[in-house]
């Protein structure tokens, strides 16, 4: 018991003291962290066979890195978190079909254009209400809320439903939950070819002007930007970009008027069974490597914190109990997702930057502490007054009384509600998917984006969670039996 506590506290300290990976050594080429969705085929997605991150943008940025002499690290996150991640220096560059627009040009360092495309409007097949951009007025479209396409749709008078990526948008359109989508013609062609869907179709162009896609960097990183631009120019000159484009689109999208993209061959539809079979393992890895360690660590640290908060809460010192009360109130009175965002995106602005896993552990353990503190407090108070008195008459001080007399008895009362906290935590770790953690749920999202098998994949992910919860519940029952051995004959 003691060693566990001590170990957990030590770990907490370690996590806090070592917030970021050590900087690369001087001699090595610069490490560039590339933010990308990983769910935006054919630009950035996971190859269903190999699970490797691939796509047009991925190959382009790899080619740029080879020319510029960078080492690359890919960080996958959903679109709406990409620019915040760039702002918070969690990534150095975005390679995800960032459209050039004046707002972005003012705020970020934008590279030379490596994709010329145009926006198209997608509608349910035969929906004649929507023919051109003007028809979007008063209609609802599904977009990543901070994307350039969302801006186009809003300017046309549409209500924009925020989604994470094109696959979700297409599903909403198909289900009749939205009226249209504005997106890049290449992404749409890829979707149509891959799914073979006849339910949605391209209604027409979204405005006359074509769109130019670029890499986005922080404005301050001008050296990195000029390296990128030199590399892009060189890759255009030596035909590398054309080669990559031909491979994916049978046209050269790296220049204006390089021909119409043709994705009719698609990546070939696959059976649901195939998709599940190839996704089961990555999901399992996400479960074992992220979901379970994240849950276990956060719970252990959270319990230690909860005990301290509970003790502070029942202490006679007004300042201590007031602080504890405030902490509990704030944790229980704000959404977990918001707490996670504060730790992950907010704290870096005051110089506290943790890697994603650590940030998630910090947020989740604080959250557990807030809820478990009340459980532990009431469990301690449920131990009869006479036990405290008896302990003091045999010469025990505060700490000894707590550890040897009160907590073992309080544990009996606390185990069932704490088990609930643990089960909730396990499932809540799926929120880690929004702070760059590739955990179980994120793996299912990645696979769903590539294959559009939402039902099968999310149900399968649910099965994993459920199995772990059943196992934990069985553990709870055993623990309760053990703790009850001295009260039930």
């Amino acid at each position, binding site marked *: 018991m003691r060693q566990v506590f001590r170990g957990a506290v030590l770990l907490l300290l370690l996590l806090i003291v070592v917030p970021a990976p050590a900087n690369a050594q001087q001699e090595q080429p610069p490490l560039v962290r590339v933010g990308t969705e990983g769910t935006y085929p054919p630009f950035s997605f996971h190859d269903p066979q190999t699970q490797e991150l691939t796509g047009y943008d991925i190959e382009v940025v790899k080619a740029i890195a080879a020319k510029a002499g960078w080492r690359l690290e890919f960080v996958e996150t959903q679109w709406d978190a990409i620019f915040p991640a760039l702002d918070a220096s969690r990534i150095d560059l975005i390679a995800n079909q960032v459209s050039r627009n004046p707002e972005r040009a003012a705020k970020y360092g934008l590279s030379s254009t490596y994709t010329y495309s145009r926006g198209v409007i997608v509608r349910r097949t035969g929906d004649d209400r929507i023919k051109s951009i003007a028809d979007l007025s008063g209609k609802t479209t599904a977009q990543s809320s901070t994307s350039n396409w969302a801006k186009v749709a809003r300017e046309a008078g549409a209500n924009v439903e925020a989604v994470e990526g094109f696959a979700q948008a297409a599903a909403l359109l198909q289900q009749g939950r939205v009226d249209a989508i504005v997106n890049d013609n290449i992404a749409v062609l890829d979707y149509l070819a891959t799914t073979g869907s006849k339910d949605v179709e391209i209604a027409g162009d979204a405005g006359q002007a074509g769109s130019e896609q670029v890499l986005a960097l922080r404005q301050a990183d001008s050296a990195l930007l000029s390296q990128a631009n030199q590399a892009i120019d060189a890759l255009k000159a030596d035909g590398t970009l054309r080669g990559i484009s031909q491979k994916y689109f049978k046209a050269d999208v790296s220049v204006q008027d390089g021909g119409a993209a043709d994705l009719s061959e698609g990546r070939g539809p696959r059976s649901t069974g195939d998709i599940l079979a190839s996704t089961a393992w990555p999901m399992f890895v996400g479960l074992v490597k992220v979901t379970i360690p994240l849950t276990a660590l956060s719970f252990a640290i959270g319990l230690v914190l909860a005990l301290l908060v509970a003790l502070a809460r029942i202490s006679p010192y007004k300042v201590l109990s007031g602080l504890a009360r405030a902490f509990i109130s704030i944790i229980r009175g704000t959404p977990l997702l918001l707490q996670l965002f504060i730790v992950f995106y907010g704290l870096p602005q005051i110089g506290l930057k943790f890697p994603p896993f650590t940030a998630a552990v910090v947020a989740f353990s604080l959250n557990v502490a807030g809820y478990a503190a009340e459980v532990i407090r009431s469990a301690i108070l449920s131990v009869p007054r*006479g*036990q405290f*008195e008896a302990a*003091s*008459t045999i*010469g025990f001080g505060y700490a000894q009384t707590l550890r040897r007399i009160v907590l*073992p008895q309080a544990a009996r009362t606390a185990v069932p509600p704490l088990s609930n906290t643990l089960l909730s935590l396990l499932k809540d770790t799926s929120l880690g998917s929004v702070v760059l953690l590739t955990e179980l749920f994120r793996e299912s999202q990645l696979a769903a984006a590539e294959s559009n098998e939402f039902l099968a994949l999310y149900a399968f992910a649910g099965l994993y969670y459920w199995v772990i919860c059943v196992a934990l519940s069985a553990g709870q029952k055993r623990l309760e039996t053990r703790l009850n051995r001295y009260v039930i004959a």
Partner: protein
Amino acid sequence: MTDIRIEVTGLKKSFGSLDVLRGIDFASERGTSTVLLGPSGSGKTTLLRSLNVLDTPDSGVVRIDDVSVDFSALPPGKAGRAEGARLRAQSGMVFQSHNLFPHRTVLQNLTEGPVVAQKRPVDEVVAEARSLLDQVGLADKADSYPYQLSGGQQQRVGIARALALKPRVVLFDEPTSALDPELVGEVLAVIKDLASEGWTTVVVTHEIRFAERVADQVLFLDGGVIVEHGTPGQVIGDPREERTRKFLRRVLDHG
């Protein structure tokens, strides 16, 4: 300092506006049994709890053997608590509702204090604890949990737990009040044995017959003061004060 084990001088204690102890003075000689009698609310339990600082007196001096604490001059905070703890270590306490540790076996209930708080060697403590259990007739219950015992057995374990600390004084707070009538005898027998073995005891009880047989000194409290004190023959057999007589009539009628 002849053989005075407990010496209480000018002890006062109030809870809020209620004066529970209003100046208590008494002394107990070594190896004697002092019984505190009195109606409920008379302050007898508070007096007993003050002796081992479960309740902290507001003023007055308590001395047990060589530890003396002047509560009028008790330093605040940690230092004061340390003094209280030193005085507390002089006595063992037996509670009305035994307050055994339910998650520890009978033997562990006895060894917990000596091993963990007094840091005495485990082997020695266990051997002593077993002989104490033997003494209270529960040698075969060492590995039972408290819930597996009868009320009388639980209270005997409570007594053994207090003795295991090797205290200078053993305090009993109505040790038989929570017991079924048929179990009272076995507990009183154990307490009586202690008195004859030379333990210094202070007992709060309603068992007048027991007090008559066992006590060397009886204190009758009412309204926070000692109304009358003396041998059982004097206080119970021939009380001088009307309040004492009234109390005894009531208790004996019911008992």
